[in-house]
């Protein structure tokens, strides 16, 4: 997907002015509430007309004030997944799913209805009304409905923000698997750095109605580590849980990690670990209360605000720890240095699994 967007839209007390070109299939738009993300998405979908400018998607002009082109929403083939699912309340799940599918010209239909229903695990829900579905089910139906419209681009406008944490990370694998299986490029809008890292490669950062930065999602997380109260969030896929001395031992890459707070039935899952919860030692400590002590090699150092991020390679995996510059000098932390990382067993938080 190649998108070029140079538009201006003024409101009474707010102006959105963007000028960017982006390529890729997993693009993110990141910004705090009120930064203009949703306005840009509405303009792109054709739901809001900019004052002037040009939007070109994969070589086709969607809008051009100079050429007097303004394709209607139904002509753009840009489907949306909204924050509040926006399912049609007077239709069944099946009719919601088929709404866009029926309106897509037959020659453009490439998505198989049954396969999509299978991937999203919606088989049991098809005949039900949408009003008595759970939040997660509703968002899965909304996602399926948008995909079945066979769009050239899928806009996901904070689709997880209305869900609680546990549901949010249950839905992410669906979002990823659906877009990967059906090869639909997407623009994912969120104010969560973790969601950006899980869902996108390239991120456009929005502030006060304009784009201030274009970066990879990893760069975004690192540059904001210093100002983020939880620091840099390490995302760890833990597997093969076994009970050991009343604790849960998980495999992570070539390492074993001990966790204290996991229900025993969680065998595999995605966990988060804050960079603030990783303590570095120059030498092997004699005695330590933390249950995890990993031998690591320093890969890289990066500045983020007043903090210093240390990228560590531990048994095939990468962790980021956060320290102050003085500590880096004292511990002589430089790329290639060997170091020990201590992590408390209670520092891990399960996101999904």
């Amino acid at each position, binding site marked *: 997907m190649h998108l070029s967007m140079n538009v201006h839209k003024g409101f009474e007390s707010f102006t959105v002015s963007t000028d960017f070109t982006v390529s890729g299939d997993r693009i993110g738009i990141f910004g705090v509430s009120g930064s203009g993300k949703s306005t840009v998405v509405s303009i792109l979908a054709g739901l809001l007309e900019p004052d002037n400018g040009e939007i070109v998607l994969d070589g086709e002009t969607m809008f051009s004030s100079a050429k007097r082109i303004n394709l*209607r929403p139904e002509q753009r083939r840009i489907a949306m997944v909204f924050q509040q699912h926006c399912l049609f309340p007077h239709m069944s799940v099946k009719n919601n799913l088929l709404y866009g599918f029926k309106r897509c010209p037959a020659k453009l239909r490439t998505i198989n209805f049954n396969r999509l229903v299978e991937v999203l695990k919606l088989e049991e829900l098809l005949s039900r009304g949408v009003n008595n579905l759970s939040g997660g089910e509703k968002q899965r139906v909304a996602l399926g409905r948008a995909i079945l419209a066979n769009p050239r681009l899928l806009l996901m406008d904070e689709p997880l923000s209305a869900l609680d944490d546990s549901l949010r990370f249950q839905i992410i694998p669906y979002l990823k698997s659906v877009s990967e299986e059906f090869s639909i490029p997407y623009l994912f809008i969120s104010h969560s750095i973790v969601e950006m890292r899980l869902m996108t490669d390239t991120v456009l950062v929005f502030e006060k109605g304009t784009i201030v930065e274009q970066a990879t999602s990893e760069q975004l997380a690192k540059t904001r580590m210093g100002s983020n109260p939880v620091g840099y969030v390490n995302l760890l896929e833990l597997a093969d849980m076994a009970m050991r001395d009343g604790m849960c031992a998980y495999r992570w890459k070539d390492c074993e990690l001990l966790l204290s707070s996991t229900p025993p039935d969680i065998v595999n899952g995605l966990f988060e670990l804050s960079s603030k919860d990783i303590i570095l030692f120059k030498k092997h400590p004699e005695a330590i209360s933390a249950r995890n002590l990993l031998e690591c090699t320093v890969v890289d150092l990066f500045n983020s605000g007043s903090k210093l991020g240390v990228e560590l390679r531990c048994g095939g995996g990468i962790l980021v720890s956060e320290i102050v510059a003085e500590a880096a000098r004292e511990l002589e932390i430089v790329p290639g240095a060997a170091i020990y990382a201590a992590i408390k067993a209670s520092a891990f938080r399960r996101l999904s699994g």
Partner: protein
Amino acid sequence: MVSLAQTDYDAIRLSAEVAIAANVLSLPFGFVIAYLITFVRFRGKVLLEVLVNLPLTLPPVVIGYFLLLLLGKHGWLGSLLHEAGIRLIFTLKAAVIASAVVGFPLLVRSLRIGMEAIDPQLINASRTLGARWHDTLLTIILPLSLPGLIAGSSLMFARSLGEFGATIIVAGNIPGVTQTIPLAIYEYASSPSSESMALSLCLVSVAISVIVLFLHEMMAKRMSRKA
């Protein structure tokens, strides 16, 4: 004991015909006006709203008089219709028009409330899923406006049954032709010996109104359960 004469049965039939016809006549216009007021931004919207709601505040007799000026033989529209061989004044059609004009604000108001309750994002979702605006109108806005439409129709039906002032001016009070229930009651009430006949028709009028409102409540409950 309710006892009704043939002219009373005619009045009941004519009232029902007028109320149904006024509803059928008003629904498409009411829907379009409510849609414009709710979803479309345009200059003169406030003026349109004032015009639509004017019959609510004007005495029905005044409305009837204006209609008489408009549709009468020498009226602006009436003269054109007269040339085409169409006569409206003192016919049942005039009673239908009078009822439609008087009940129109109630219909539009209810429809508008129904439409305003629709989440605009549903309309946006429909458009991004490939629906053209008229497709969205028929598949999303119309079905979701049904509670408002039912409420408005019921209110308008009930209002039409009770319409007196405008009807008597433009349609007169001709038994079997334009005499509806309120006009028949008025005639009975003017004659001291017809007190029981007037009461009988009043009871019929009450019964019809209760049935209409009962049906309205039932449908509204059903719709809200569905939603």
